[in-house]
């Protein structure tokens, strides 16, 4: 892998360069406690030290709501509305979110690829950014705290700038085309990188790995945690809507007033909603709040072969943004410890 250095004083200029290449999105502080990815007008607004954004980066490739096609009911014809494929530059993505995007890729760009997602994704540039964990983070046990693929460039914080890892040809081109912003790394930078990594690892509140979590969960499907915690649940779907790897969607036809046409839209759904498991005829495969709650714990802990991680990347959003303060990590640990002497 190639490594270069982006000195602190060149960061803004580099961001300006990125902005000139397409639409630049990055983390912004939007309220007292919350951050979100937003379109960047002024590069000074970019927040380099943020814990997590409200909405996950997948929204740029798989929007909350989109028209998949318009139709003509008279001739029974459809007109697909494909994304324009404009360049999207996503700056400041944490490692866990990059794995999240790779998990999205594994489901949306497979042997039956989703064209809407794929076109946007192919036009996306991902710039990673290192971070330090807070008490909600558990990416380390998910093995997603450090990524080796899925980014074009990855910026690691140094005292006087960033150590940049170059992940793709697009990343190399970015550097080749703007050599004035970059310099070679020094041995001091290497030391600082190592120090940062050591510090970062030591900060996690959970250590080790959860590779066997899914088996332990499965052995205790009847654990009382599910009943107790789902009782607190509001069924609001915040956990899945903020999740970087949740991808359930719903589809709906909207006819025009005169009935001669209309559009088919798809929009994010959540397995926490009642209608998620409902089929025509009225049968519901997950009729209770507890069924739906348990479903999410199973789904998120399932194994993704492409990334060799669980579908949960340990970003902590589902807990951080849970109005009912349901602690995903703690609950998992509770089941994990069952029978394990904990």
């Amino acid at each position, binding site marked *: 892998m190639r490594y270069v250095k982006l000195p602190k004083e060149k960061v803004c200029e580099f961001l300006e360069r990125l902005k000139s290449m397409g639409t630049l999105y990055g983390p912004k502080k939007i*309220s007292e406690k919350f951050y979100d990815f937003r379109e960047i007008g002024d590069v000074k607004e970019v927040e380099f030290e943020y814990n997590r954004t409200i909405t996950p980066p997948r929204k740029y490739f798989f929007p909350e709501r989109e028209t998949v096609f318009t139709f003509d009911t008279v001739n029974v014809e459809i007109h697909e509305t494909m994304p324009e494929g404009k360049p999207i530059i996503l700056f400041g993505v944490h490692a866990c979110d990059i794995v999240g995007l790779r998990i999205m890729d594994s489901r949306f760009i497979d042997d039956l690829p989703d064209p809407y997602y794929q076109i946007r994704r192919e036009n996306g540039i991902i710039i990673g950014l290192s971070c330090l964990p807070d008490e909600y983070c558990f990416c380390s046990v998910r093995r997603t705290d450090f990524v080796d693929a899925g980014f074009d460039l990855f910026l690691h914080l140094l005292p006087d700038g960033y150590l940049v890892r170059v992940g793709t040809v697009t990343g190399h081109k970015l550097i080749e085309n703007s050599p004035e912003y970059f310099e070679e790394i020094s041995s001091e930078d290497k030391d600082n990188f190592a120090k940062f990594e050591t510090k970062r690892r030591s900060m996690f509140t959970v250590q080790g790995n959860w590779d066997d979590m899914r088996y332990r969960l499965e052995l205790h499907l009847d654990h009382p945690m599910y009943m107790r915690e789902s009782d607190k649940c509001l069924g609001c779907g915040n956990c899945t809507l903020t999740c970087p790897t949740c991808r359930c969607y719903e589809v709906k036809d909207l006819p025009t007033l005169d009935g001669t046409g209309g559009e088919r839209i798809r929009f994010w759904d959540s397995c926490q909603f009642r209608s998620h498991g409902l089929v025509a005829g009225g049968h519901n495969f997950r009729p209770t709040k507890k069924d739906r709650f348990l479903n999410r714990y199973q789904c998120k802990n399932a194994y993704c072969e492409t990334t060799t991680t669980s579908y949960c990347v340990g970003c902590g959003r589902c807990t951080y943004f849970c109005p009912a303060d349901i602690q995903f990590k703690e609950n998992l640990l509770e089941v994990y410890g069952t029978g394990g002497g904990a």
Partner: protein
Amino acid sequence: MERSKMILPDHEIIEECRDVCRATVGVYVLTSCYGCQLVMATVQKIMEIANLVDFKCFYMVSSKSSMHEPVDIAFVEGSVSTEKDLEELKEVRKNAKVLVAIGACAVNGGVQSWSEGDLNYDELYASVYGDSKIKYKGLQAAPIDSYVKVDYFLPGCPPEEDEIMYFLSTFLFGSYPEEIDYPVCAECRLEGNPCILIESDAPCLGPITVAGCKARCPSFGVPCIGCRGPVPHDNSWFDSLALIFRNKGYSKDYIRERMKIFCSFDKNLEERLEKVFGRKK
């Protein structure tokens, strides 16, 4: 009252007729602020609608209105609050193929039901009109499905324009609208709003209120007041939210009164609150 399952409508679906005929529509009002009709009368495409359908009744905007004609689609605004309201509602039901309850009053009883369970009609009457007699007989405000079968519920105080358009379009197409069964809270996250319930402990009813407004008020930093009513199919988790509010220091009375503004007719409200606070005295 059990709300229909909405899997397959057990009423007639309007046959789409396009150029051949015009669907007949009635807009009726019981007791309310007239806001739902106001929204209906002022949707951007109102003139297009007026060309596509035949308004048999729309007293607020047309002198050419009659209560007594059969219609394909009846939109009923307002709560049943007088005996005359009830008579009219029954007639509308008789005349309509599809009856839609539109707005908080018709769907959930409206703000006039705020004291439901605490004060009855006579007590309310006495406190406002004293001993004086009025020749019309009033009734305790109630949502219209307390009296007649309602095919669809279009909530909101007032309802959202795009929902009105969606309902109308699907009906005219010979189909019917998809029901929303998730809360405002979800829409609020999709809008990318910071959560005021988490961040500033605001008494936001977004988690128990049925979505459809794109989190209009939380987007202004104003806690949801619940004007769209509870999430249907018993998925309005008053208990979970009450517990959160209680942990934030809100009193039981405050929580109950706030939730009751637009949910007083939800059969789960008191029961679920009791689960958190114990039985009401």
